[in-house]
């Protein structure tokens, strides 16, 4: 039995959806993209300037065509991520603008070398089922910032990718870049957009603007992704008390209205295209005016909206496992660990946020290494308690004769790796003297050592030379146009 955290009664879920449908009629949704407005109008919504009043039946029809489950694949064509049901996966938080320097503890503007380092570490850690375009590369031209990040991740990783586009023209290129690596299916030859649609390698985050707004870019993004049949991930971000009602439930209603209107636009553009009920909400800190990702109430909003999404049979995503601390300290550990566990218990399919400090602004490879342990524990927890032996205990007592000799049983050796999550050396379970002999290292120091080891052991996944040439050629000309003379190559 997978243990579950449910914060809402069925009655409350109905009320949330009912009020979300009311909001979509009054005040309606501000849709700043003409094509999206046309789609909604043609389906029976009323349009007044940018304001669209979307009737419940339009949304209900859209919900009927949304796939309840889809998968992400790695570059070898293996299924690696299940979006649907109560499957739980984790990926590093994305789009950080700083990295934590492990030596000086400065928050430095992130550059290509930092992204490469993060991707390598995440590639080595089985806790991460997918990569993310974890930081922006500040030295790369803004015009190609999004596709440049994807280029770097593709060079160094074979895992599925959680990414996002910054403009519609770059979105086109990013889909083409991914299509190079799509593997053949029974219907389509590899290397094509059709094959990518059948076996997607990435999911694209798409954000509404709180409250209740779909920007021209956001809505356009949804339409493009739907038509390319590339998975979209809704990232609604109500800020409880600032850009959303102060109550957790009020924010969950707003999340539902923004997400449901997004699904309507998306499914009207292409019924049956995959889309995820995701988000990155937060409460609003009333002392500092900040958006704490490590607050328990932030996790409660996530768990609640995930429950709403599940009631509609949708794949889910949230932003947890991050911390607002500025270094990898006790606060970072507790906020990331607690929220990762809550997200896992809520059965969220993709939990983004690991590695992140400072309100999702700063990524840290060392924190990714620490968070991987919290994720290992969270995954163990949701794997639940399993009956592994014919009798639970009585047969295991045969021959024991009041002695603590269970270590001698074959079954102990067979089952302990299933029963116990085996942490890496980042988690200290040594005796006090063993710990002292190893240098009396704290968590961060142990994480630095493990990061060094992982980087040393990292090997770049194989990439066919013709695919690499095609990828470089695709990015090269755009980079040049944007003012970047030389595109970095894989080391």
């Amino acid at each position, binding site marked *: 039995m997978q243990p579950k955290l449910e914060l809402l009664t069925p009655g409350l879920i109905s009320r949330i959806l009912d009020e979300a449908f009311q909001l979509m009629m009054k005040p309606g949704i501000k849709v700043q993209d003409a094509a999206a407005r046309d789609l909604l109008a043609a389906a029976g919504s009323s349009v007044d300037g940018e304001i669209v009043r979307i009737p419940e039946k339009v949304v209900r029809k859209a919900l009927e065509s949304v796939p309840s489950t889809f998968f992400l694949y790695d570059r070898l064509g293996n299924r690696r991520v299940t979006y649907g049901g109560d499957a739980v996966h984790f990926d590093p938080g994305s789009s950080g603008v700083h990295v934590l320097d492990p030596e000086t503890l400065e928050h430095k503007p992130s550059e290509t070398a930092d992204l490469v380092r993060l991707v390598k570490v995440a590639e080595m850690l089985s806790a991460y089922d997918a990569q993310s375009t974890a930081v922006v590369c500040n030295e790369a031209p803004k015009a190609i910032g999004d596709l440049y990040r994807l280029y770097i991740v593709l060079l160094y990783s074979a895992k599925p990718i959680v990414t996002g586009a910054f403009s519609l023209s770059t979105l086109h290129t990013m889909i083409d870049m991914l299509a190079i690596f799509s593997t053949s299916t029974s219907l389509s030859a590899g290397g094509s957009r059709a094959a990518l649609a059948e076996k997607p390698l990435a999911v694209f985050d798409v954000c509404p603007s709180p409250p209740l707004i779909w920007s021209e870019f956001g809505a356009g993004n949804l339409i493009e992704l739907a038509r390319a049949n590339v998975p979209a991930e809704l990232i609604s971000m109500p800020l409880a008390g600032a850009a959303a009602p102060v109550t957790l439930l009020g924010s969950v209603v707003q999340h539902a209205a923004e997400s449901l209107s997004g699904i309507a636009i998306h499914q009207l553009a292409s019924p049956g295209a995959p889309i995820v009920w995701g988000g990155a909400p937060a409460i609003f800190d009333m002392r500092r005016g900040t958006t704490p990702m490590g607050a328990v109430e932030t996790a409660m909003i996530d768990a609640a909206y995930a429950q709403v999404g599940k009631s509609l049979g949708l794949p889910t995503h949230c932003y947890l496992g991050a911390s607002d601390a500025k270094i990898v300290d006790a606060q970072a550990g507790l906020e990331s660990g607690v929220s990762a566990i809550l997200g896992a218990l809520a059965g969220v399919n993709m939990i983004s946020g690991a590695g992140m400090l400072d309100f999702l602004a700063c990524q840290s490879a060392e924190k990714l290494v620490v968070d991987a342990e919290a994720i290992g524990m969270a995954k163990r927890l949701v794997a639940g308690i399993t009956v592994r032996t014919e009798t639970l205990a009585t047969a295991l007592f045969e021959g024991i004769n009041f*002695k*603590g*000799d269970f*270590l*001698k*049983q*074959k079954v*102990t*050796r067979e089952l*302990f790796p299933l029963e116990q999550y085996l942490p890496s*050396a980042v988690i200290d379970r040594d*005796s006090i*003297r*063993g710990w002292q002999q190893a240098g009396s290292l704290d968590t961060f120091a142990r994480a630095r050592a493990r990061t060094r080891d992982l980087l040393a052991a990292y090997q770049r996944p194989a990439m066919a030379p013709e695919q690499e040439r095609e990828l470089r050629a695709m990015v090269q000309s755009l980079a040049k146009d944007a003012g970047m003379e030389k595109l970095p190559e894989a080391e």
Partner: protein
Amino acid sequence: MSTELFPKMSQSIIDGDSDAAAALAQQAVESGLDPLEAISKGFVIGVNTVGEAFAKGDAFLPELVMAGEAMKAAIAVLEPEMQKRGTARQILGKVVLATVEGDIHEIGKTLVGTMLSASGFQVYDLGVDVPSAKILAKVKEVDADLVGLSALLTTTMVKQKEVIDVLDKEGLRKKVKVMVGGAPVTRDWVQKIEADGYSEDAIGAVAVAKQLVGAA
């Protein structure tokens, strides 16, 4: 002759498969292989492999213990043959092991016993809550080279000192080395009670024991 058995013997220990180890030992006896060679070129290689893997964190306690058990099973089959041949396995030393009086914690001590016996020591494990007098009696009976004393509680570790005092009183202290172990045992404590050695874990205990009997 039968040298192809050696890797299988070693593997049976690595697999912690007592049945296979005993069967291979039986095969060795039947084919006339020298039991000593079966041990030194076959089974012990497996014990060392598992021990090294454990020290590196690549193997775990169940593997270690089962390797020790498989070793025991092999030796039990080979022992009568050695007696018949008038040879004996070279014993590194005789060890009397006990958890001291008032203390019933034995997992660590049992592990040490398993590893010591797998490594070539003759181990007499007296169990838990063993009075000092009983330990002394066993030491005399078997003419022990080493005594290993375990205590998990700060309240019972004083008994480790009591055993040392008793051995001293009997004039055995020069001849019999004393190893102590258990969670509360520190280097300071070892010096204070004038024990000869201590270790953090079962693998370390084997190294200390070998050193104390001059077999390192």
